[in-house]
């Protein structure tokens, strides 16, 4: 069971990243939870300076990019 978190205060790129993460999980048939972290204080705990950011099992994988589902799959494999 993977834990995916999307960090972002709700801009359009953050929504795109969330949708793409959902698509990636579905395509891979993974068991995963996707959680949105929207409070800026909580986002800062991950140490990122740009949003949206992708966190998998507590580790920041990417920041500042709305990754495509293909890119996200690489981080979930």
């Amino acid at each position, binding site marked *: 069971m993977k834990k995916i978190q999307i960090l*972002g*205060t709700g*801009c359009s*790129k*953050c929504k795109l990243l969330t949708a793409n993460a959902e698509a990636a999980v579905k395509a891979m048939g993974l068991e995963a939870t996707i959680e949105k972290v929207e409070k*800026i*204080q909580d*986002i*800062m*705990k991950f*140490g*990122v*300076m*740009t*949003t949206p950011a992708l966190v998998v099992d507590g580790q*920041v994988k*990417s*920041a*500042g990019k709305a990754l495509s589902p293909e890119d996200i799959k690489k981080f979930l494999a």
Partner: protein
Amino acid sequence: MKKHLSLYVVKGIGLLVIWGLVYWNLEPFANWFTYGFLGLPQEHHFSTALQFFVFETPKVLMLLTLIVFVVGIIRSFFTPERTRQILAGKSEAVGNVLAALLGIVTPFCSCSAVPLFIGFVTAGIPLGVTLSFLISAPMVNEIALVLLFGMFGWKVAAIYLGMGLTIAMVAGWVIGRLKMERHVEDWVYATGPTAGLEDEKIDLTARIQLGRDAVRDIVGKVWLYVMIGIAVGAGIHGYVPANAMASFMGKGAWWSVPLSVVIGVPMYSNAAGIIPIVQALLGKGAALGTVLAFMMAVIALSLPEAIILRKVLKPRLLAVFFGVVAMGIMLVGYLFNAIM
């Protein structure tokens, strides 16, 4: 990977040659299309407007594509993490200058303003230096630069670039002198230093792909605004009498500079939408300083930005930030009206 790169280089050179051939023939083509092919009369409202549109639209879109591509590649060298490393530990005046310059080349989206602000100040970068970066990043905008260059030539583009950098440097420095650190929201400094991501190692092929992505992303988003803007510009170019704007936005009207800034600050538009208005005003007798002040107020300061920054800045500092930048824009507006 090597094979990929040489393929990109060959393709790139080919595209650049085609780009050049097309670009330098746009004006003859627009003339031929309007006066030859359609056979419209010279010196007529509609044909002047049409010729303008047929010439300017491909010209601006082509310039935009080229610059966005080049800037996309340059930006791949400057991540926010690297910019922070460069700025940390610099003295204040040097920091202000560097921060303003880095604001141009560091990829930045206004939705990241808050985490970026926190990441900078918790790494020990002085408040004023951080604000220099936050002023320069939106104000010195590559799309604005291209459009100004395409429509008014390199002098106006250079003035805009110089003005934007100067305001970012000086405004950040002034706020640094005011020692307003305690007007930053308390929880910001309570946040520990943020680590940030390791820099990814990427090769030239990946950078070229990033440039291409930037073109797809940015040009894909703004092309419609550019076309609408040019259409409006074309209408004004053909139909509005010259000097229609001179009486209330010309050099003689001293109050027009502050008024432009006051109207421009709460307004929010991307650069692609605002330049054609600038073009229209300038073409009909408005003064350059006044018009540039209006444009900078619109793209550098906005209500949504104030709401975002309110999360980290207490009202007093937020007001000082907007006030100092607006004053800077006004001063530069007057300066240019005086010397041009």
